[in-house]
């Protein structure tokens, strides 16, 4: 185990853990803002109770997102110093702008929202939650622009042995960045909808606070339905863009070895990376990959063999993560569509409610798989085509990284258990009168 491997493991663990909390903040804040606006407009106490109940879960989740986010910002320096020195001129501003423009507002206003119930009017209080919701999505925008730059670097030049910014708007408005942003925030909105629908299902199955949870369910359902379908369409466009910008990743996602036209999609494939082929291929749909990538069944899709062996990502991990993500995404469309038809008779369908309850973890898994596709699929590059991950790592000692990784696993493990326990506890308690 060397510094490179340990640092990668540490960054993966810290990012995936951080992203267990970020998506819920992204989506639930909008749902709470909507509920609170309903309260301000109608004066209906039910909406106030909703705001407080879901808001409480949001706040517990929020603090976990905050504390795990700070470590990420500093890990570029601690563990990836050669990367930071090489790309800081382009990458640094994106992180700095995120904090200055968005995260400040979000964090300051969360305090105002928690403590401000009797200090500001109910309209002002609802506005504060809207601003929290909007600024958290803007925050995500900057972080994802930064990540997208690592996937598809634009707007820079190499000068004095480092990447220097030449065009900030090219980086911000790159097609890849916009697609990645839309894809990621939608995953957060879907996750939040399933989180709310799952908890509602739990209470509806127990036949408690029926009115409260049936109404909450419907609010989340609309949100989830819209974004599940949006995500499917957006994902298709995003995938087509990856085929152009990151052909090696695309080929790995689909276990596609030989460059050819009428490239197929396999329902299931097990790659044999040693022999550059698939040892198992089930359910080939000819031409589908060509069509998905280039909207033409005859289009030629570049295969993995075009890339030297040391410039291919891990095919097994990338393809499995991709398949799971797409499968779950499809399931979310089906579940929310079913929900739409049952929305006024939820209590008559306990099986559906049970499925929704046990679906709570699924969007979490889908989001993690998405990040694994994005990041593992980019390897061996840390900045695609520009800098390799192995050249990016800090000149620090193995024992330091080993110790910090152990601490991360221990502390995050502990906090994860406590955090989710508190969320579950407050969720199952139901609304307080």
């Amino acid at each position, binding site marked *: 185990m060397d510094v490179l491997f340990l640092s990668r493991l540490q960054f993966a663990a810290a990012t995936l853990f951080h992203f267990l909390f970020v998506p819920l903040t992204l989506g639930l804040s909008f749902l709470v803002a909507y509920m609170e606006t309903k309260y301000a407009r109608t004066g209906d106490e039910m909406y106030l109770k909703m705001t407080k109940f879901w808001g409480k879960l949001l706040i517990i989740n929020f603090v976990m997102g905050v504390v795990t986010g*700070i470590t990420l910002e*500093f890990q570029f320096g601690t563990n990836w110093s050669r990367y930071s020195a090489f790309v*800081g001129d382009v990458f640094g501003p994106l992180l*700095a702008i995120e904090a200055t423009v968005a995260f400040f507002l979000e964090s300051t206003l969360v305090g105002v929202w928690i403590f401000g119930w009797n200090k500001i009017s109910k309209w002002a209080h609802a506005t504060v939650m809207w601003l929290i919701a909007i600024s958290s999505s803007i925050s995500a925008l900057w972080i994802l622009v930064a990540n997208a730059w690592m996937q598809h670097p634009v707007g820079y030049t190499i000068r004095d042995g480092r990447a220097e910014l030449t065009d*900030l708007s090219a980086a911000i408005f790159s097609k890849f960045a916009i697609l990645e942003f839309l894809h990621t925030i939608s995953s957060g909105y879907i996750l939040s909808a399933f989180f709310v629908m799952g908890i509602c299902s739990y209470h509806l199955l127990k036949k408690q606070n029926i009115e409260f949870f049936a109404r909450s369910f419907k609010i989340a359902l609309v949100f989830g339905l819209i974004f599940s379908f949006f995500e499917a369409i957006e994902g298709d466009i995003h995938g087509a863009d990856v085929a152009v910008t990151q052909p090696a990743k695309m080929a790995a996602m689909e276990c596609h070895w030989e460059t050819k036209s009428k490239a197929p999609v396999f329902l299931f494939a097990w790659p044999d990376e040693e022999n550059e082929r698939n040892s198992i291929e089930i359910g080939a749909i000819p031409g589908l990959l060509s069509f998905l990538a280039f909207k033409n069944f005859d289009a030629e899709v570049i295969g993995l063999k075009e890339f030297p062996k040391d410039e291919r990502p891990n095919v097994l991990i990338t393809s499995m993560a991709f398949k799971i993500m797409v499968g779950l995404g499809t399931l979310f469309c089906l579940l929310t569509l079913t929900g739409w038809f049952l929305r006024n008779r939820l209590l008559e369908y306990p099986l559906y409610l049970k499925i929704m309850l046990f679906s709570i973890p699924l969007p979490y898994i889908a989001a993690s798989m998405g990040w694994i596709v994005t990041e593992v699929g980019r390897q061996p590059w840390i900045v695609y085509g520009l800098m390799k991950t192995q050249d990016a790592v800090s000149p*620090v000692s193995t024992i330091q990284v080993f110790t910090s990784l152990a601490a991360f696993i221990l502390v995050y493990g502990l906090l994860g258990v406590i955090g989710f326990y508190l969320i579950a506890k407050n969720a199952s308690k139901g609304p307080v009168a």
Partner: protein
Amino acid sequence: MVLETIWFFLWGLLWAIYFVADGFDFGIGCMIPFIGDNELEKRKMYNAIGPVWDGNEVWLITAGGVTFAAFPLVYAVMFSTMYTPLMLILFGLIFRGVAIEFRENEDSKAWKLSWDICMCAGSFLPAFLFGVAFANIFKGIPFDCNGIFYGDLLTFINPYSLLGGILFVLLFIMHGALWLTIKTDGNLQQKANDLVLKIWPTLLTAILVFVAASRYATDLFANYQKQPMFYIVLLFAVAAILAVRIFVHHQLYWRAWFASAITIFSCTFFGIIGLYPNMFPSLIDPSYHLTAHNASSSPLTLTIMLIVVLLFVPVVIGYQVWAYILFKDKVDEKELVY
């Protein structure tokens, strides 16, 4: 050149604001297990910083982000050489943050005590280590032209850096105690008042000893000898801390707190001015020093970031001041959240 110098001082400014803003949160965190006699007093202490601590912490994220954006090489070498101390700071901040939010969620004594301990350790550790880290930066770090560090954890532990750590902790405890005098009343306020009086002489001594020690342990004074008018920052620090004592005597707590803020600010700038143009001096060879000029970003990036900061930081300060004014009143027993 000018742009780099502007950025150097903006960089210092952001750290100074961070220490002023999160300093009192750290101070109150450190003292929670010791001066809160009962559950109600402890809760009042959590609620005294509850509405603002999270916004305060973002100044650190901004200071870190700006280091990355404006001085990528400093960001890279500083944080990788100080790997373990920085990790300890980050873990401290994690525990501090969750302690504030999680503590109220269970009623058992053991639960609350555990989070009080996390709060205390998670406040003390960053407060102390920021002091240790900056003192070491003033002193210089053994690293070469490739940013490779020739030392270990013990390298950071020396009399001067420990003094820096103690100074930071004392500054923040006084700052926190003064915030408590503003936000509470009765017995708790009295205790906070007494604490300020008790640590004040030690803090004054610590400041003077640290400044004197800097004369021998660092090159900070070179800039002051070149340009004696900069000594004014030391004058500010001493005047401000004397003012704290006077204001506390007259129970003008808001003014005392502002004077304490100026003390922290001046102490930070004493170091920043002395450091210029160095940002991360090397003990091995002065030619390895990372400076505002050899470690900075391109003029384009510095210009863009300058526009962003000049545009948004005043806005941030604006709404943060609004939030402070909104929660300026004493903590109300009937409206406790945490």
